[in-house]
């Protein structure tokens, strides 16, 4: 790949780097692991860049590559958290004092979402990014109906955890 291509890629990545950071925040639990995953996503984006056609939005293309790297390609280092069962999380949160301030609520929400399984995280991520169900289904390779059903189940689960 030539210098110009490299330059274009870096400019685009720099502009949209928040997408990668957000994926890293969901799938890792400390700064080292965050940087590790960020590194791997950057490499995968760069390797796939020649196949990127301008007809799709760069950010949309980034969602797919970043999530695929986090869910499938990335070999978790020991520093990253392992996915736990949702039920186990519910117990942990229930035992903590639930403060109704917005900040505390956000903290609890992040904690709950952080411990969903990899696929549920991907759904929540795309939902938070305001993607419609068509895009969610295409990114994950499941039907639109199933994406909707699963998202509703996740919402119900989160509700139960937050309002026991």
């Amino acid at each position, binding site marked *: 790949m030539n210098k110009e291509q490299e330059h274009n890629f870096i400019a685009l990545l720099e502009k949209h780097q*928040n997408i990668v950071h957000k994926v890293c925040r969901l799938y890792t639990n400390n700064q080292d692991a965050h940087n590790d995953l960020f590194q791997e996503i950057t490499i995968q984006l760069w390797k796939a860049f020649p196949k990127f056609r301008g007809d799709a939005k760069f950010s949309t293309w980034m969602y797919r590559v970043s999530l695929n790297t986090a869910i499938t390609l990335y070999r978790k280092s020991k520093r990253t958290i392992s996915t736990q069962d949702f039920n186990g999380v519910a117990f942990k949160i229930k035992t903590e004092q639930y403060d109704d301030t917005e900040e505390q609520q956000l903290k609890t929400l992040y904690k709950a979402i952080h411990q969903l399984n990899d696929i549920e995280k991907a759904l929540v991520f795309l939902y938070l990014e305001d993607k419609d169900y068509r895009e969610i289904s295409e990114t994950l390779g499941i039907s639109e109906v199933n994406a909707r059903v699963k998202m509703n189940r996740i919402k119900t689960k989160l509700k139960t955890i937050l309002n026991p």
Partner: protein
Amino acid sequence: MDELELLKKDWNKENGGFTKKTTAELYAMLHKKSSSIVKTLFYISVAELLFWIVINSIPYMTSEEYQKKLNTIYDNEFLFTGLTVLSYGIILLFIYLLFTSYRSISVTDSAKKLMESILKTRKIIKYYVLYNLIMAGFSLIIGFYFAFKHNPAVSGKFSHLGNMELIVTTIVIIVFITVFILVIWFFYRIIYGLLLKRLNRNYNELKKLEF
């Protein structure tokens, strides 16, 4: 759901509280090595290809005397050449299948399609290993058989055994070979099991959504 809407608001904040990577940092990242499972899988498959090619080539690299012995064992030259051509043909076929399979792995596919491509590649490696283990098993059994039949040094040692003892010895040898092959197979399962544990779990999770 109110809580998720609250989270969405926080989620989409301008900078999100992240330490932005500088242009120089991003440039440096492009030239680092990937540690993805596809790369690991690729190295394992190349190592396996080489390993079994070397194992298959050992008879050709040994002394002339041994080769002569081999020729007496396989007294039918046509059969011997045929088997050699076939085994290398199969190796070439596996190399071709692996190559096309690796090329079909694309990070820009949907998550499910990507996982399927990786699992397909892993399946090809699995069949390659299985094929070689089965061939190794057969070769060992045939080797023992010919040693009994044609090698006076070996058959002399067993000549004093009665029929019953001979049957027991044969069974012991077959069990030994089977256990040996199963141990190697089990070892492979562990390597791939560990490497693809997370991928399998996520793939099953996606498949579960389709019901």
